[in-house]
Structure formats: structure tokens, C-alpha cells
């Protein structure tokens, strides 16, 4: 009996307990509490809890943090179903919560994604400690330090990139890395190669600075995923994305010399799965100026219209389609003061026109619940037209390019072993024609090269100590057969303050002989190509450049760099020491030494190399005050016809200092001081009756200053500044400027600014 009673009691208790439990569950659901766990996957593949991760409902103040076991609980919010999970050093994740009681969140290490961190306070320009590539990330704040105007002018505060004038007429600023001309740096826009071939020289001026959200500057070779062309480095630009916060972003700029620029970035959507942004740019320079008093305009007059549209469409979970198009028209006029470029008469005139149309598409698919596994398909079509007239030289060029790149990325076992693989097709059709004087044989370049290939890149992460990225690609060119591009990047953290990087790899590119050297037409020098060995009785009516025997350029690049973080009087400081060696196996040599009245083009026979040492110190002696100091050594030599000589126009020694101070009331002061050493100059010794130049230029100082004030509540920024504050000028920049049609005329010997101090001002308004 007693036993029975006891049994009944036990049953009752059980029942009670279960009911209670059930009730409790119901109760919990009524209160609607979301529970979850936040984890990370370590490089060894272990799943560990993240303590202290911040979890909150999007657009609300309701949030919590995870405990030492990674657990959290948070009441459901009536107005938000999007849960934001963030933790320092990890990519912020946003989840759509349908009503499940428990969620598992696996955060991804930000460094594995190689993304620019935006969610917490970072320096405006920095090199990630954990990136195996030597990449400087420049964000919008850094770009604001040099308010004017386009990509070619955005590197004033970055000592890794040099900007040099190519000639005294076109106003073109050429980008140099590691002492090598711009064509040896791969320029890409959101990882699609953008400035190539005949648009090489002017290309950077086609990207307005205001359109940019950031620039990544990689010294040495980039990833094989982005192709085989990079040799000295890679410059990747990122436009404002479709996720931009601002409804409208306006910028206007006015500089002495009548340079006027207007920019507008408009977000066209308010919300939803289809998001799109429109970019507009217009610029005009209307005043003819002659600061250095040589009878020639210092900067061309001209105008540019530039329109870009981009969209992002989230089609379904994990699948999105991004794309856009761009249309550009640019015109530059220059020459002797007062010249009418369309009817120059006896005056020297320069006219440079460029039109570009491009469209691109990117399909991205991330596998559900497998963030490490994704596929992407990038495509771009571009059409570029150039027309140029330099006195009696006429040039016309067209390039039609198609680029297709498919990337698949995943892991092998754990996220310690990652790989990317895929294939690419790159096609370039060139149609160029050059007529130098009326008496010479026209030079034509009509050729199409299709390069198709496949790549594989493996990344080994033993974080935080060691990273290895080893990539290889095999490509086949329709003209020059197959070639292999291997690349290797290593990163080793000696301590948590010191990191060592090493890289080695091969790059290959087909030179666009006329397009890349178009600005050399600003002289009476005659372009000399190899003699053709043709068994023909009929005299040629034109010179086919495709038969000149130019081989693709091939270079090996090796780099070693040290990054050390330390404290200088309690304040953070960083020291960078980089050494890069580039050695050409094959190069298109552009020889201006052999003869004062010619430019010879031929294949490299012998050695050609560039050594570059850079020592850079970044200190922050006070909060909001940054100092960047750099010294750079360049030794760039090529075997010319006569002998092994230093490349022209590359200074051996350079020093750089940048000071940036910001007050709490958002006044910013930026000052950049540069010292540029002597540069070797092309030969002018043959000009017995004309003008002569020394064999090297003078050393000189350049400095820029800018003051800006930010009115945060109004979204308004105002700035004024001066470039070339010391008003330094190369007074004698054009040889025989008074007789531009004789054989001694040469406007390509520019080693310093021809325009004096330039004062400017402008505004930015974000709404």
C-alpha cells in the first residue's frame, strides 16, 4: 500500500515536473527570448566560444554581450528582426531571425577576408599586421588629405607611389612604383583590371577621387587571381558601394588656373533587394596660364564628362548580382599661348581626346551555411578611343577589351587551408595609327591578343604566426603561346609587434607600344622601330608594328619587408623597411639616350632591373597628430644600346614627410614636404645648334598644405589648400620652345613642376 502510494506520488511528481517544464517553455516563448552562442573557428579547425561579442537588434538600443562560454540571451524586439553580431577583429554579421529560440553564430576573422575594416576606429592609412601582402589601405579620410582631384593625384600622402609629369604639354601625371613606369603597376577597379594598354597614361585621371571609398596599394606582386600582369605593384580602387549611407554626396573644387571640378554621388534606392548608385563628374579648365614664361601653356585647357552607374541585386539567399556601366569623354588642348587648336596656323598646338565606354557584371554566390565556400564570375567589356595631335604628329588608337574571370573558393578540411581556383579570358583588340610628320611612313598596330588561362592559389594560415600564399597560373596567348606565372607570399610574425614578409613571382604583359608612349610625341624626336627584314619588292605603304618582333615583357619581382610596431614615449609608432628587386627577362626598351633626336624602341638585350629601398616611420606624438617620414632609394638600370644606364626621370634619393593634425573641433591641418633628388635626363648632347640640357636635373623641394573644417551635423566639409607652396618651377622645361617645328623641339624633358604655386578650395556635402 505504502509502496503504491509512493509510486503514485512519484508519478504525480513526474507529471508535475513535466507540466512545469512545458509551462516554463511556453512562458519563455511568450517572453520571446532569443538564446544563442557565438563562436569562431580557429586556424586549427577548433570551434571556440567568443566572449564579449556584442549582439544587438539592428536600429535599436537593445543588445547584450556573450559570456565566457559564448552564450547570450536577448529578448525579441518588436521592431527589429535583424540581429547584428560584432566582435573586434571579426567580420560583423547580420542575421534575419524568423523566430527560432536558439541561434549559432560563427564569426569570421576579418583578416581572412582581407577586407577594409570600417566598424572601428582605424588609421586613415595603414598596413594590416596580418595581411601576407604588403598592402597599404588608404581610406576616404586619407584621400581627403589631398583634395584634388583624381586617382593620379591621390598619392600625395603615400610615399609608396610616385607621381611624375610625363611632359610639359598634356598635364598627364604618371604613376610610378618601385621606380618603374605606370604600365608595370596593375591598376584595377574592385579587382577588375581597369587601366591597361592605350589608356595607361590618362587612365588614372579618369577616376575622380570623390568617387572613391578607398585605395589599396600593394607593393610587389599581387595575387594570381587578378591576372598575370602586375610586376611592380597593384593599385586597386574601390568606389562608393551600393551600401553607401549617404543619399547624396556633392563635391565642388576650384583651383587657380581655372580648374573647376564637380562631383555627385547619388543613392537611387531607399531600401530593398535592388540597390543602385549614380556617379557624375564634370571638370573644366578654362584659363591659359604660363607661370614659367616659356610661351607654352603650363596646363592644358579642357573638359571631361564622366558618368557611372552601379547596382547590386540580391537575387536569393547567398546569390547577388552586381554590375554597372561607365561613359567618359575627355578633351585636352594645349600648345603655344593663344593658339586655336583647330586652326593653329603657325603656332604649336596639342589636342588630346579620349572616349571610353565600359560595362561590367559580377555574380557572387555564397553556399548556404558555408561562408568559406563561394563562387564569383566577373566580366568586363571596355572600348577606349584616343586621338592625339602634337604639332605635326598625329595619333589615333582604339582598344576593345573583354575580361572574364571565374573564381571558386573553399577550404581543404579546415579554414587553415584555403584555396581559390578558376579561369580567365582576356582579349584585347588594338587598332592604332601614328603619323610622325607627313614625310614618314605611318606606323600601325592592328592586333588582337586573346589570353586564356586557369589559376590555383593556396593559402595556409597558422595564425597569428605564419601565412603562406602560393599561387600559380597557366595561360595561353593567341600570339605568343603559353606561359606560366608562379607567385609566392610569406608572412611571419616574429613577435606580436614585428612581422616579416617575403614575396617572389613573375609577371607578364604585352606592351602597348604607341599608347603607352604617346606623350613622347610632345617633341621632334622620331620614333625608331626595328628594321623589317622583308623580301618584298613593293615599297611598304605603312610600317606594321606587329612585325617588329616585340616580345611580351616578363619580369620577376622579389620583395622583403619588415614592419615593427613600438612605443615612442608611450605613443604608438610603426617602422616599415621594404626592399624590392625587379628584374626583367624581357622588356620593351624605350631609349632616349642613344640619340637626341630619336626615341628607339627595341627588345631588351642584357640586364634591366630596379632596386628599391624604403624606410618609413609613422609616429603619433599626440592624439590626433600623425607624422609620417620616409626615405627612399631607387636604383633603376637598363641595358641600352650603348651601355647599362639609370632609367631617365627616376630620382635616386627621395625624402618625404607628412604631418596631419586634427583638433577636437574638427579642424584638420595637413602638410606634406618632399625632397626629390637629381634625376638622370635623356640625352640632348646632339643638339649642337639648339638648346642643351645637363645630364641630370636639379634636386628640389615640394610642399603641399591643406586646411579643412568639418561641420559634422551639417555633413559639410570645407577646405582650402596650396600645392607647390614654395612656388618651385622648372623654368626651362621645353627645349627650343620658340621654334617648336624645328628638329630640336622637346617638351618631354620635364622633371619638376611647370606650374607654380596653386591655391585651391572646395566643399564636400553629404546628405
Amino acid at each position: 500500500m505504502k509502496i503504491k502510494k509512493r509510486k503514485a506520488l512519484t508519478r504525480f511528481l513526474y507529471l508535475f515536473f513535466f507540466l512545469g517544464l512545458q509551462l516554463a517553455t511556453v512562458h519563455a516563448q511568450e517572453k520571446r527570448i532569443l538564446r544563442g552562442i557565438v563562436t569562431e573557428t580557429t586556424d586549427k579547425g577548433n570551434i571556440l566560444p567568443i566572449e564579449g561579442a556584442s549582439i544587438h537588434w539592428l536600429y535599436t538600443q537593445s543588445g547584450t554581450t556573450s559570456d565566457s562560454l559564448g552564450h547570450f540571451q536577448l529578448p525579441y524586439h518588436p521592431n527589429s528582426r535583424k540581429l547584428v553580431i560584432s566582435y573586434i577583429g571579426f567580420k560583423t554579421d547580420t542575421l534575419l531571425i524568423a523566430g527560432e529560440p536558439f541561434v549559432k553564430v560563427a564569426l569570421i576573422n576579418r583578416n581572412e577576408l582581407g577586407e577594409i575594416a570600417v566598424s572601428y576606429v582605424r588609421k586613415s592609412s595603414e598596413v594590416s599586421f596580418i595581411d601576407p601582402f604588403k598592402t597599404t589601405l588608404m581610406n576616404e579620410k586619407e584621400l581627403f588629405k589631398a583634395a584634388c582631384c583624381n586617382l593620379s593625384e591621390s598619392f600625395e600622402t603615400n610615399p609608396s607611389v610616385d607621381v611624375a609629369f610625363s611632359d610639359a604639354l598634356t598635364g598627364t601625371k604618371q604613376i610610378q612604383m618601385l621606380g618603374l613606369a605606370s604600365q608595370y603597376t596593375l591598376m584595377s577597379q574592385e579587382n577588375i583590371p581597369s587601366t591597361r594598354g592605350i589608356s595607361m597614361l590618362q587612365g588614372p585621371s579618369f577616376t575622380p577621387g570623390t568617387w572613391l571609398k578607398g585605395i589599396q596599394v600593394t607593393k610587389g606582386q599581387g595575387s594570381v587571381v587578378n591576372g598575370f600582369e602586375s610586376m611592380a605593384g597593384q593599385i586597386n580602387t574601390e568606389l562608393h558601394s551600393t551600401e553607401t549611407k549617404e543619399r547624396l554626396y556633392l563635391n565642388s573644387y576650384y583651383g587657380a588656373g581655372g580648374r573647376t571640378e564637380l562631383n555627385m554621388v547619388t543613392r537611387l534606392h531607399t531600401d530593398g533587394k535592388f540597390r543602385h548608385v549614380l556617379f557624375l563628374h564634370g571638370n573644366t579648365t578654362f584659363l591659359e596660364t604660363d607661370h614659367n614664361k616659356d610661351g607654352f601653356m603650363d596646363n592644358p585647357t579642357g573638359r571631361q564628362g564622366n558618368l557611372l552607374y552601379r547596382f547590386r541585386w540580391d537575387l536569393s539567399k547567398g546569390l547577388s548580382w552586381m554590375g554597372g556601366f561607365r561613359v567618359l569623354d575627355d578633351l585636352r588642348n594645349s600648345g603655344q599661348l593663344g593658339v586655336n587648336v583647330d586652326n593653329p596656323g603657325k603656332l604649336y598646338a596639342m589636342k588630346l581626346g579620349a572616349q571610353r565606354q565600359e560595362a561590367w557584371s559580377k555574380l557572387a554566390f555564397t553556399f548556404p551555411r558555408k561562408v568559406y565556400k563561394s563562387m564569383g564570375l566577373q566580366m568586363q567589356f571596355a572600348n577606349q578611343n584616343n586621338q592625339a595631335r602634337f604639332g605635326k604628329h598625329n595619333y589615333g588608337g582604339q582598344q576593345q577589351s573583354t575580361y572574364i574571370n571565374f573564381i571558386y573558393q573553399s577550404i581543404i578540411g579546415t579554414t587553415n587551408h584555403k584555396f581559390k581556383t578558376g579561369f580567365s579570358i582576356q582579349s584585347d583588340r588594338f587598332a592604332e595609327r601614328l603619323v610622325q610628320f607627313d614625310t614618314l611612313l605611318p606606323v600601325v598596330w592592328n592586333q588582337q591578343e586573346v589570353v586564356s588561362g586557369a589559376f590555383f592559389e593556396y593559402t595556409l594560415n597558422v595564425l597569428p604566426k605564419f601565412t603562406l600564399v602560393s599561387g600559380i597560373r597557366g595561360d595561353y596567348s593567341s600570339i605568343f603561346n603559353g606561359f606560366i606565372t608562379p607567385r609566392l607570399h610569406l608572412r611571419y610574425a616574429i613577435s606580436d609587434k614585428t612581422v616579416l614578409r617575403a614575396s617572389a613571382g613573375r609577371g607578364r604583359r604585352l606592351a602597348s607600344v604607341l599608347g603607352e608612349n604617346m606623350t613622347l610625341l610632345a617633341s621632334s624626336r622620331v620614333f625608331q622601330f626595328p628594321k623589317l627584314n622583308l623580301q618584298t619588292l613593293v615599297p611598304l605603304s605603312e610600317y606594321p608594328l606587329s612585325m617588329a618582333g616585340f616580345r611580351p615583357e616578363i619580369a620577376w619581382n622579389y620583395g622583403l619587408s619588415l614592419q615593427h610596431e613600438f612605443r615612442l614615449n608611450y605613443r604608438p609608432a610603426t617602422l616599415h623597411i621594404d626592399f624590392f628587386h625587379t628584374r626583367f627577362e624581357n622588356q620593351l626598351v624605350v631609349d632616349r639616350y642613344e640619340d637626341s633626336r630619336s626615341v628607339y624602341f627595341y627588345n631588351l638585350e642584357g640586364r634591366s632591373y630596379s632596386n628599391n629601398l624604403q624606410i618609413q616611420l609613422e609616429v603619433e606624438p599626440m592624439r590626433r597628430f600623425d607624422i609620417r617620414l620616409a626615405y627612399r632609394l631607387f636604383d633603376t638600370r637598363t641595358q641600352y644600346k650603348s651601355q647599362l644606364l639609370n632609367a631617365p626621370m627616376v630620382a635616386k634619393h627621395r625624402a618625404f614627410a607628412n604631418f596631419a593634425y586634427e583638433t577636437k573641433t574638427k579642424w584638420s591641418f595637413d602638410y606634406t614636404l618632399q625632397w626629390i633628388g637629381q634625376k638622370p635626363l635623356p640625352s640632348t648632347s646632339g643638339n649642337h645648334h639648339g638648346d642643351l640640357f645637363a645630364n641630370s636635373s636639379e634636386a628640389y623641394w615640394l610642399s603641399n598644405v591643406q586646411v579643412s573644417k568639418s561641420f559634422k551635423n551639417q555633413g559639410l566639409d570645407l577646405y582650402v589648400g596650396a600645392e607647390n607652396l614654395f612656388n618651385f618651377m622648372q623654368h626651362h622645361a621645353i627645349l627650343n620652345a620658340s621654334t617648336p617645328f624645328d628638329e630640336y623641339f622637346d617638351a618631354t624633358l620635364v622633371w619638376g613642376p611647370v606650374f607654380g604655386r596653386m591655391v585651391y578650395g572646395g566643399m564636400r556635402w553629404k546628405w
Partner: protein
Amino acid sequence: MKNLMLLVVILLGLQVNAQNKTEKTTLKVFGNCSQCKARIENALDQKGIKMAEWNIKSKELVVVYNPTKISLEKIHELIAKSGHDTEKATAPDSVYSELPGCCLYRENPHTHED
């Protein structure tokens, strides 16, 4: 080049000069996350403070300051005014209640084992 060297020398000189007058101390400040870190460190962006760094895990704030320009009491006060309790000062409730959810360390402290 000479000017640049001179500048470096002057800067280093200033640094050494400043070093002699500073004091370093560690104090406990309550908070939770990286947002708290930014807020605490920004509160000490003041004259006389050379360095202020707060550790999320240990809740310890390392301050290097010049006692002739700013007192330790003032430092506590500045932190409290930004919404964070210290071992000596308490943040006003009005400021504390305005903090974002993840920073509400009083209700939802995120404490480390040690």
C-alpha cells in the same frame, strides 16, 4: 634634407623633454565592449594626458599623464562623465542610461575569469 633632420631632432627633443614630467598609473574602469573602449579613451583626449588605453578583458585602464596639468581625480571624473564607473567615481544615471545596449555593464556585466 638638412631641414628634415633638424625637424626629427627637434621632435625627439620634445619627446624626451615631455617624458620626464609624466606619471603612469593603472585604474579599474567598468565597461563591456569595443564601443566602451572608444568612449573611455576619447573621454581622456585631454591636455596633460599622454596615453590612455583600456583593456576590454581586464577592465584596466593605463593612463600616462602629467600631474601638473591634470589630476588623477579629474581623470576619474572625466571617465565617469562619459558614462563609465571607475573604482572612485560613479557615472551619472542620466548618462549611463543613454549608452547603447551592449555597453550596459551594470545590468549585464561581462566579466572575465581573472
